[in-house]
């Protein structure tokens, strides 16, 4: 893996946004060859989205030939609800850029048949030629997307019941009322993300430090599903200083050292 450590949240967001921008530009997407991007939601990637919008506004990048696939969406929450992931993506990203709405894919948590919806999503990813770069975050319990502790590390897109930790963590978006937080979600599987050509995980803040430690310094374990990416050929973890607080000094020094930032892997 690559572990990129920036001083603070803003610098980490900027680094990640620049990486995405550069990958898209280098790919030279066109009408025959779209760049497929997997996207997360939450407070961690917010700064990254802000930076990408800046790059779009200054003309550095266009999303005209980019297809996006979000990781997850709540089940049963009305799409227009301010806390739905559709609302998040519209307000924080899609409405500010030039992406074709037909190319912005998000799981439909209100679909008639949730299983069919999940299978269709996997199909859409396959039809798009697979994901070039999947951007994700990490939960305090080490989950990627809504692949809660105990999720199969070869899982595909499916319905998941949310863990108590996740519901508590999300309560702040629902007026701190645990009863208002959705209990189920549709999510891409660990296996779905592992299929991407490249994976970039954003981790910022001291409250994520223990999860990062479990994900990269301990073994591959379905209790900390982000650890699965130890077995992916191209993974980058982008974090701020605070997120490294539970790591060994040796690990941090190695990845902060000059030569390691040039390593491909």
């Amino acid at each position, binding site marked *: 893996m690559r572990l990129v450590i920036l001083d603070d949240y803003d610098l980490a967001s900027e680094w990640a946004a620049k990486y995405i921008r550069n990958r898209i530009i280098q790919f030279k997407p066109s009408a025959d060859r779209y760049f497929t991007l997997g996207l997360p939601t939450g407070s961690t990637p917010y700064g990254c989205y802000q930076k990408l919008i800046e790059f779009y506004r200054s003309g550095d990048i266009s999303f005209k030939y980019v297809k996006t696939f979000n990781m997850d969406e709540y089940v049963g929450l009305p799409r227009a609800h301010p806390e739905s992931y*559709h609302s998040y993506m519209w307000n924080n990203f899609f*409405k500010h850029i030039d992406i*074709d*709405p037909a190319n*912005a894919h998000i799981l439909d948590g209100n679909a008639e048949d949730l299983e069919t919806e999940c299978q269709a999503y996997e199909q859409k990813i396959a039809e798009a030629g697979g994901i070039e770069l999947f951007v994700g975050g990490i939960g305090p319990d080490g989950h990627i997307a809504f692949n809660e502790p105990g999720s199969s590390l070869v899982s595909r897109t499916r319905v998941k019941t949310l863990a108590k930790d996740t519901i508590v963590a999300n309560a702040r978006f629902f007026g701190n009322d645990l009863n208002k937080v959705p209990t189920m979600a549709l999510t891409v599987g660990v296996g779905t993300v592992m299929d991407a050509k490249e994976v970039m995980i954003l981790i910022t803040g001291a409250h994520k430090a223990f999860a990062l430690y479990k994900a990269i310094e301990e073994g591959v374990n379905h209790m900390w599903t982000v650890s699965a990416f130890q077995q992916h050929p191209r993974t980058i973890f982008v974090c701020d200083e605070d997120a490294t607080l539970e790591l060994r000094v040796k690990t941090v020094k190695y990845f902060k050292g000059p030569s390691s930032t040039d390593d491909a892997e």
Partner: protein
Amino acid sequence: MPSNKSVSDAAITQFINCRILRDHRLHRDDLWVREGKVLDPEKLFFDEKGYADKRVDCEGSIIAPGFIDVQINGGYGIDFSQASDDVSSGVSFVAKKILQHGVTSFCPTLVTSPPAVYHKVLPQIKVSDGGEHGAGVLGFHLEGPFISVEKKGAHPEQFLRTFQSGGIKDLMEAYGGLDNIAMVTLAPELGGSQSVVKELCQRGITVSLGHSVANLSQAEEAVHHGASFITHLFNAMLPFHHRDPGIVGLLTSDQIPAGRTVYYGMIADGIHTNPAALRIAHRAHPSGLVLVTDAITAMGLPPGRHTLGQQVIEIQGLHAYVAGTKTLCGSIATMDMCVRHFKHASGCSVEEALEAASLHPAKLLGVSHRKGTLDYGSDADLVLLDDALNVEATFISGQEVWRKGP
């Protein structure tokens, strides 16, 4: 990019680089319009996978809902109360002119007149949508003739009336009909008026109290029966008294039925109401304040002398005097002037000033589901303003109907 819409093939316009008035605040956000109505862009994106066909760059302007003037007697030489065979061309002329003041809907107002005038004028004007031809007509505002002799103001005494037969019959006799009427101003102390208030409200006509010597109880009774407006607060009514506040007391009355608001018209031209009085009213009941022009025939005419009907009027700045005297003969401030003056005199926020000319009159007339807001589904009647609240452009149903010249 070509549109890809499953719901409609109509063109979609996106107003960019603007601040829009929504949820009582100015937000830096785009405004989307399709088929004359404000569109929900998130639904467009996810449900229809659609996007804008045309973008209008507002260069940082404010977009507010178009202004609504519920009391305007004429302007530019036109007097709505004048019986003529072609009332509609006069109303249309004014309707077109007031677009430059940001007004997109209005209530042509008739002062106390003989039945012959009402019978001739009323049938000629219908409630109608605005457009390139001018602001929309929401219905007449009939100010009188069922008003108080003592508070007639400039209304002709010989045409004042009381309720004789009781109920709607008197109104039908006077007016000839109740179609296309948005509002009636009457004095609630007149005998038999309370049942009239009730019947008018039941027919969906807004009842306003004005030109009256009613005390607070009589006013409250009228509100109980459905009255919801006060015509030009302070003017043509008993002055506020601390032991009998009169109609003015409605602003802080505890007898208003739950869930209802009493609105009050304010002529904020700096002349008809002392700014200190304006502030007292505003601070007592900010959500009820409705800006009105109560503009007369001379509004819009250049400074100097003008002969209007039987009168010679002299315009000096914002004052219109009976020529050769210092007697005021009506307001000539335009709606945008009133908005600016109100903001300046009251120290209120930009949002409050704009809502006093849009949201509040819309709620008063019961049309706020389609006018007076920029909510999704509302009619796209818009006014573009600079930071000083000068009108830059006016739109009706999403079409530009006026733009300031260079």
